[in-house]
Structures are given as structure tokens and as C-alpha cells.
């Protein structure tokens, strides 16, 4: 056993930190957007930063070198992800999605042309995908996809509607799951396509989230023609491909690092704030709550480290990722809730308000955390996975 990072890994961490200190734009620090808080400005900054990350090879460090990656070790990728999140680098959900879901699936199932064309550009930070899985009547239940693709000459013609497509209004491509065989059983007959978002027939309609930002969209497909070469992998094999892709390294380390930073800031605040004539840090209830958050986040962090370590051993984490995500997502909500409570009335103040403290991060987080662990791949489904795949409990 050894809970230390190697010297090389520690040096890499320092390198990342140094670089982030230089490269994170001051304006970004001022904006301090949380998750699901893209504005046009923050999006523009993030895209710039993606390219910088891409230049370093740190945007998609896991990819093979021939497709623009660094083939960085799992532990170093863990460190990179941790530092990016802790230092609040301008890396949003859209990168996570593109880099961690789309390319790995392309590399696994795609044609050589697809690999060359998309993976490399994604690694450079030039290309962003959105995901077209959910439909109005199929949230957690991907097998219920109704959007249809019908062969017509060299194309498929797509009709239907997707929902919850994050950043569809900003993405270059859609990674789209559609039904190609309506007569097959539910889980069969689904295929995956790469669809250029500029294709005629695509309409994107915003869904404003409760942070008052435009992240999600409904996407309507009206006789959208997609060349057959944009089919990824086998026709009608999409459900399986998507299931595999959803299983890819979902790093919960980012959440743990985000929490870590906030718990530290709350501790700073408690030290610096006087209440009832004594520092808040002397209030036994506050101490108890902050200590418990620290303990729980240590659990979250170890669960995330475990995933990277398993990969580094050539193991393939399954339910372990579910466990890690369930834990950290619920902890994020607790952190936000307890943090707001410690701040009292000040915790209610929103960003931009006079008298706001800690840049209103707790208030924002108490809203954004409502998005974690719900919907597709909800914590309920993750707990089923832990029980069935992890513990061998019977499905029926």
C-alpha cells in the first residue's frame, strides 16, 4: 500500500498548478461561474482555454498520441482533473461530455476516418459535441428512444425530438442515438450517428435552467439528412455502444476537488468571521459540521482515487464508479446546504448582490447541485447497479 503519489506525479501536479496560475484568465476568476452557468462570455473564455489545454495535450490526455492525445497515465489524469477542478479552470461540462464520452466511443467503434477526423480535433479543443440521448418520454430509459432514422440512398433521414441536450446551441456536432429498426425489441434497433449541427432541419430550442442560464436545449429533427458514413459502429447496435460509453471513466474527482475547495473556503470564512463576539470557528456546531464535511469529502476523494488506481492496475471499474458518483453527488448537496446554513442570511445572497460573501458560491451551488444525481443515470439507478452488479443481488 502507498497513498502517496510518485515523485513524478507530484512534479506533474506542481507543473499543472503553475501553469493554471498563469493561464486562468483573471476575468474568469471574477466571473466565477459554477456548473451549468455558461454565459456567452464564459463560453468564449472556456473555448479559448480549451485550445490552450489542447496545445498542452491536457484536454484529452488519455487519447492515443496518433489522435492528439498524450497517453498520460491514469494517475496523472487524476491529478490533472483534480487540479483543474480545484483551481476552477474554465473547463465545463461540455468538454467532459465530448472528451470522456464521445471520443472513447469513436475510438472503440468508429471507422478510421471518424477517428482521425473527430478525435484529433476534439483533442485540440476545436470541436465540441452535444449528446442526443434523452427524449421527452425517455429520460433514464434510453431503450425507449423514438427518434427515427430511415435509410434513403446514401443518407439516413432523421425525424424526432431530443431533450436535455446540453450546449446543443453551441456544439459543432451531435452524438445522436436514434431508432433504426422500429420492429426490433426495445434494446435492439438503436443506432448512433454523428450529426453536424449545421445540417438543415435541425431546430434548437433553449431550456433555461434554474440558475437562469441557457445550457439545455430541446433539439428537433425534421427530415435531417445524415450521410451513411456518419453512422458509428454497427447499425442497430447503438444501445450497447451507448451503454459502454456511459460506463467510461466518469471522473468523480472533479466534484470532490470542487467540494474540497469550498470546504476550505468555508473554514477560512469561519475563522475570519465574528459572530456573537467570537470567531464563528469557535462555535462547536459549526466546527462539528465543517469537520464532518471534511471527513465525508475525504471518503469521496478516496472513492475517486480508487477508480483511477483500478484503471492503472488494468482493472475495469463498474459499480465502483456508480458508488463514487452517488456519494459525491449527495455530498455536494450537503456541502451546499450546510455551507449556506453556516453563512446564515449571508448565504442567501445571490451573485452580484451587495453584502454577498464567498462570491455567493454556496447559494449558486445549492441550486446547481440539484442537477447532480438526478435524471438519466439517477442515483436510484446507480444504487440498483451497485446492488446488482457490485453485490450480486438478484435483478428480479
Amino acid at each position: 500500500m502507498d497513498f502517496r503519489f510518485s515523485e513524478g506525479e507530484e512534479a506533474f501536479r506542481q507543473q499543472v498548478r503553475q501553469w493554471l496560475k498563469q493561464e486562468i484568465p483573471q476575468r474568469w476568476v471574477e466571473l466565477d461561474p459554477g456548473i451549468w452557468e455558461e454565459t456567452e462570455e464564459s463560453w468564449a473564455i472556456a473555448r479559448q482555454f480549451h485550445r490552450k489545454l489542447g496545445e498542452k495535450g491536457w484536454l484529452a490526455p488519455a487519447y492515443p498520441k496518433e489522435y492528439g492525445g498524450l497517453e498520460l497515465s491514469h494517475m496523472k489524469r487524476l491529478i490533472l482533473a483534480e487540479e483543474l477542478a480545484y483551481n476552477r479552470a474554465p473547463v465545463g461540462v461540455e468538454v467532459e461530455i465530448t472528451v470522456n464520452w464521445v471520443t472513447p466511443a469513436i475510438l472503440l467503434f468508429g471507422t478510421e476516418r471518424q477517428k482521425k477526423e473527430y478525435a484529433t480535433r476534439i483533442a485540440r479543443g476545436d470541436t465540441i459535441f452535444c449528446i442526443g440521448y434523452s427524449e421527452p418520454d425517455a429520460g433514464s430509459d434510453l431503450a425507449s428512444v423514438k427518434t427515427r432514422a430511415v435509410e434513403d440512398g446514401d443518407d439516413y433521414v432523421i425525424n424526432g425530438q431530443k431533450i436535455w441536450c446540453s450546449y446543443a446551441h453551441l456544439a459543432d456536432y451531435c452524438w445522436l442515438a436514434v431508432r433504426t429498426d422500429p420492429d426490433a425489441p426495445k434494446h435492439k434497433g438503436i443506432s448512433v450517428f454523428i450529426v453536424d449541427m449545421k445540417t438543415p432541419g435541425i431546430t434548437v430550442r433553449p431550456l433555461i435552467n434554474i440558475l437562469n442560464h441557457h445550457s439545455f436545449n430541446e433539439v428537433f429533427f425534421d427530415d435531417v439528412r445524415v450521410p451513411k458514413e456518419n453512422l458509428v459502429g454497427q447499425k442497430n447496435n447503438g444501445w450497447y455502444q451507448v451503454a459502454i460509453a456511459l460506463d467510461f471513466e466518469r471522473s468523480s474527482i472533479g466534484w470532490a476537488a470542487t467540494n474540497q475547495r469550498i470546504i476550505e473556503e468555508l473554514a477560512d470564512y469561519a475563522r475570519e468571521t465574528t459572530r456573537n463576539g467570537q470567531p464563528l470557528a469557535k462555535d462547536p456546531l459549526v466546527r462539528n459540521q465543517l469537520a464532518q464535511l471534511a471527513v465525508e469529502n475525504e471518503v469521496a476523494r478516496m472513492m475517486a482515487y480508487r477508480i483511477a488506481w483500478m484503471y492503472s492496475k488494468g482493472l475495469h471499474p463498474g459499480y465502483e464508479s456508480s458508488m463514487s458518483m452517488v456519494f459525491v453527488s449527495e455530498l455536494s448537496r450537503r456541502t451546499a446546504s450546510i455551507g449556506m446554513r453556516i453563512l446564515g442570511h449571508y448565504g442567501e445572497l445571490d451573485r452580484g448582490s451587495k453584502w454577498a460573501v464567498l462570491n455567493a458560491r454556496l447559494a449558486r451551488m445549492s441550486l446547481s447541485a440539484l442537477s447532480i444525481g438526478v435524471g438519466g443515470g439517477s442515483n436510484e439507478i446507480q444504487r440498483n447497479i451497485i446492488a446488482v452488479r457490485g453485490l450480486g443481488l438478484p435483478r428480479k
Partner: protein
Amino acid sequence: MDLGLSEEQEMLKTSARDFLQKECPKQLVRQLDDSEEGHSPDLWRKMAEQGWMGLVFPEEYGGSGGSFLDLAVLLDEMGYNILPGPFFSAVILGGLPIALTGSEEQKMEFLPRLADGTTLLTLALTEPTAGYDAASVRTEATARNGEYVINGTKLFVPNANVADYLICVARTGKGDQAESSLTLLIIDARSPGVRITPLKTIARDRQCEVVFDNVVVSEKNILGRPNEAWPIVEEVLQKATVAKCAEMVGGAQAVLDMTVNYARERIQFDRPIGSFQAIQHYCADMASDVIGSRFLTYKAAWKTSEGLPAAADVAMAKAWTGEAYERVTLLGHQILGAIGFTMDHDMHLYYRRAKAGQTIFGDADFQRGIVARGQGL
């Protein structure tokens, strides 16, 4: 023992629900949440016509002499419909101190105008410590030739931005005890030197910073007896706390109803999600939280209404209801999933108010401190 509402209260409840559904649809709620003032004079006028602002004030002052329990029933429905605006601050924080301690003249001046909807009041109590204790009041009112000069900063003052008058808790002496030198003063919000800045909160309620910069008022503006304000403030706070609980009970009930309806209808994996055991158990726990909140709150409200000692009951109600409302909204969001994360859905409106309700007048830990004192600890 009777745990049910009276026939009149049931009628009040039904008519309030009908009125609010009609006159304050969620569309208007959102509009007001987003507006600058957070207040609709039109809706206010209609509410005045319903007699709501005067509900608990004596008939001689334009009220209808209802009980505090009646008010709780009304607030429950307001919480159910998440009515925005200054009702709470005007009637409870503003009206109650005047009814409790005002001179005949003051009562005649303010209460009828409060009741008929022409005057808005609020209480300027908390300061940058954000605490509800007497020691936190640092704003000073200095006597000078039959006048008082007020200086200081009040923070988190509800709806001050639309108030016509502020009831300011100010320090008027240097007593041994923090409690013994506080005085209530009625201040015209348009007085020179009064500066009101609404703060931006996630509940989008209208908490304000109120700065008093050499504000001069006549000594006739003193409400109650000089240096003896604190017991009045405490009584108002206690009533306001249980009143806020009543609002939260209504909100939590609405969240439960909304969630259960969704769980009945939403199909996933070819079944309504409400048939999954995990969802069923969440809903069962929500229902339990709601009913617990309801009983603790109504018990405290009933005791208050009857004039019985209720400090521990009120603290219990707030300790439970504040946390329960948050739990209920969190489970509501969990069950709704992505749809609840959109602005267009109502769930987050309740969640935001749950957060605000948890804090105001002291959070659960604060209330448990009061409960512990009641236990002789």
C-alpha cells in the same frame, strides 16, 4: 382535543386557495419574482378587498378581529401558492408591533390604512451580524430636543423597498443589558437620510439594506415605551416565526402534491415512476415530513392564538419545519429529475423559499437552542 380546522377556517382556506389560484397564478409569481419591486399593487388591492391585511386586527381599526390561528390558515395557503410580496412583512412584522404596543393614536393612524391596503410597513431589526438577538442591534437613536437622530445600518430587512414606514429597533441608551435600552421608532421611509437598497437573494424575496444617516424623527414616533422595546420585539419574532412556519407548511404540502402527481403520471421503463419502491419511499418520507410540520406548526399557532406560553412550541415548529421543508423540496427535485431543474417548472420556486424560510428568524440549530432551554438544559 380537536386537530381539525373550524368550518369558518375551512372556508377561509378554500376561498384563499381559489383566490390565489385565480388572482396569483404562477405566471404572476414569476413575473413578480423577476420584477424590481416584487410587489403588485393591483393584487394588493384585491387582497385588501378580501380583508386579508386586516384579518387579525380589531374591528375598530378596520380589521375583522380574526384569530392568529385564522392568520396561520391564510399563510398556509399563501405558502401553498408561494404568494410573493409584502404581506408577511406588512401585516406581521409591521402591523403586529403597532397592534401590540401602539398608542391609540398610532393604531388609528396605521392599522386602518394597513388593512385597506394603502400603507405598507416593515420591521427594521437585523444588522450586519445577521442575528436576532438584542446585542446585535447597534443602530443608535440619539435624543435631541424632542427629536431622535438615527444612525446605523439595518440588513436583511424584508420588503423595505416598497414600505411606506419602517419600524426601526434602535439603541437609545447604554443599559447594563443589551436588552434594556432598545426603542421602537416609526420612520417614514421617505425621510431624508434613509437609503434603501434591495439585496439579491436566491429566494428572490426582497431583503434590503437600510441605512439611516442622521435621520431625524419626532419623539412622537416612538412606538411603545422608550428603552422597553425588546419584549415587544421578542413577541413579534415569536409570532413571526410560527407565521413563517405556517407559510412553509403550505409550501411543503404543495411540493408533495406536485411530486406525487408527477410520480403517478411519469412513465419510465414502461411503468409510472411512482410504482418504483425507491420513489414510493421518498414520497412516504415527504408525507411524513409534511404532516409533522403541519402538527407542530398548528400546535404552536394555536397556543399563540390562545395566548398560552408558546416559546418552546414555536421553536420546535421552526426547528422541524425549516429542515423538513428543505428535505421535501430536495426529494421533490430528486424525483422530478431534469424537468425540475428548469426555470419553467415550479419546483425550484419552492426550493428557493424553503432555503429562505429555513434561515429567517433563526435556523434549526438556533431554534434547538431555545428548545434545549425549555428542557432545562
